[in-house]
């Protein structure tokens, strides 16, 4: 990210200084302003869902979900570790709710737990699933569209679901196939 950021920033600054130097400072301020606005929109979404996920955690729902998912986790991720399974379950639930940001801490935790087990297969599989985004509710996108005055903010629900399902299945399939081939 650093390399890209630096390259784009410097080349843009030079180009702008040549073409329209009076636009320079306003451009930076404008960027900061949009960042604050976007952060506010994001905060409202995160507040709602992270509040709820805290409740799930404290009331034992997430532990229950993890226990229910254990047989599946054993099959898919080849793990038997309870702490890892709970983090895995929370990660995938957050992803399904479209909370990529909230899912990341759980993924990192799950990966650390799996490291103890020496289970690099599960680590990579978790990465593949997360990196292709599995979500049922694209919350961020819906909130952004609603904020911009869309008539039917949620009507991208079905297309998103199809695309995200296809990409996750395809990547997982490729990964499993490649994993077998190269062993």
């Amino acid at each position, binding site marked *: *990210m650093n390399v890209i*950021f630096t390259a*784009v920033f410097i*080349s843009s*600054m030079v*180009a*702008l200084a040549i*073409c*329209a130097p009076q636009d320079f400072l306003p*451009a*930076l301020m404008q*960027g*900061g302003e*949009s*960042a604050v606005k*976007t*952060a506010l929109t*994001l905060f409202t979404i*995160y*507040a709602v869902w*992270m*509040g*709820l996920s*805290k*409740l799930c955690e404290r*009331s034992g*729902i997430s532990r229950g979900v993890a226990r229910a998912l254990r047989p599946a986790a054993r099959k898919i991720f080849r793990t038997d570790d309870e702490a890892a399974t709970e983090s895995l379950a929370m990660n995938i639930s957050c992803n399904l709710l*479209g909370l990529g*940001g909230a899912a*990341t801490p759980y*993924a*990192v935790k799950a*990966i650390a737990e799996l*490291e103890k087990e020496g289970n690099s297969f599960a*680590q*990579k599989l978790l*990465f593949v699933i*997360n*990196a*292709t*985004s599995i979500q049922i*509710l*694209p919350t*961020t*996108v819906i909130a952004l*569209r609603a904020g*911009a*005055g869309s*008539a*039917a903010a949620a*009507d*991208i629900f079905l*297309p*998103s679901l199809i*695309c995200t399902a*296809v*990409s996750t299945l395809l*990547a997982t399939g490729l*990964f499993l196939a*490649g994993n077998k081939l190269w062993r």
Partner: protein
Amino acid sequence: MALIIPVIFIAVFTFSAIKKVNIYESFTDGITEAFKFTVSLLPCLAAVFMMCELFERSGLSDLLTKWLSPVFGLLGIPEELTKLVLIKPFSGSGSLAYLSRIIEAYGADSYVARCACVCFGSSETVFYISAVYFAGLKVKKLALPIVCVLVATLVSTILACLICRIM
């Protein structure tokens, strides 16, 4: 469809009440985490939004789009999405910046904006995630998972543009 979210909330709140969890405190704790998380995001967002703004106003972005849009056009991806698709694997905040610009510029219900939303919603920040997840671990041979993910992302982007034309 609209009932799913209310039902989830009612179920979780009722269950927590039965379990005698301190709901107010837990919910607030969750929001505190959300707040911390948003604040931790803000510096990156601000920096990247500034970069986007400069990139946009300097005319360099038009140049890049002009170069790459024929390739994307062949794949059925509208040229307005070129930058979004390119930046998404690297940075969530950067692609979010472009997404909100596209929504603002073309209107939330336009074909381009809907396409952008689906692409955004169905892909992830591949390189960023790989950096965060595997920081400091000994896992090797990450090339295979990364390539799989990138191929799948491209396919789903093409698919997204196709589906949005129909739906």
